[in-house]
């Protein structure tokens, strides 16, 4: 299994969690990003994720490697969905194990923060009336990637 993957099909959490099993680990922290029914006050009907998969996977693996270097981990895995997702669907999953919980919490947070800021993955909100918007594609939002151009 690749430690970081882009998936066009629903994320199978149980299989990912099993892959993290480790007799040395005392703590497992997971983060799940769910599609929520509103964003900045506006009702959202569904969400579409598009990824530049090749670069997202290599940048994702870089983020996991950084987390392993900074924190005392026994394992780290992450998957990001692409495609059209319903409210409540799982968009991103991060799982981290460590001997102690401090490292597991800090690393899980690091991975999702970096992933959101650096991976070339875009989301388009679909609203009740049929209108859509690419989030942050207009004027706001951060550059993808670890370093400015």
């Amino acid at each position, binding site marked *: 299994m690749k430690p970081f993957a882009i998936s066009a099909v629903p994320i199978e959490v149980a299989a990912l969690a099993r892959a993290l099993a480790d007799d040395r680990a005392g703590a497992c922290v997971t983060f799940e990003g769910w599609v929520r029914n509103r964003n900045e006050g506006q009702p959202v009907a569904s969400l579409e994720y*598009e990824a*530049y998969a090749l670069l997202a996977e*290599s*940048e994702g693996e870089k983020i996991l490697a950084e987390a392993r270097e900074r924190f005392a981990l026994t394992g780290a895995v992450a998957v990001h969905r692409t495609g059209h997702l319903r409210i409540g669907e799982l968009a991103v999953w991060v799982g981290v194990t460590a001997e102690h919980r401090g490292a597991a919490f800090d690393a899980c947070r690091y991975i999702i923060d970096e992933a959101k*800021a650096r991976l070339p993955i875009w989301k388009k909100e679909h609203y009740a009336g049929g209108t859509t918007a690419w*989030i*942050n594609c*207009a004027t706001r*939002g951060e550059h*993808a990637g670890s370093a400015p151009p």
Partner: protein
Amino acid sequence: MTRVEVQYFAILREQRGVKAESIATAAATVAELYDELRVRHGFTLPGDRVRGAVNDIFVPASHPLREGDRVVFIPPVAGG
């Protein structure tokens, strides 16, 4: 003229209407190529909001183009 393969994602893909195209360009760098395409296709994103990748690696705006490169222009990411 340099021939490169250009891929588009998200808002750029929608504004261009295709996922990829082959381009013959006099542009010497990634930044110059984006400026050329922005004018030609009416992209709304200014050049300083777009990062470049060449052959699936992030590159600076000044990165020189070579024959056969695969160039991707990366809009700002959602971040949230």
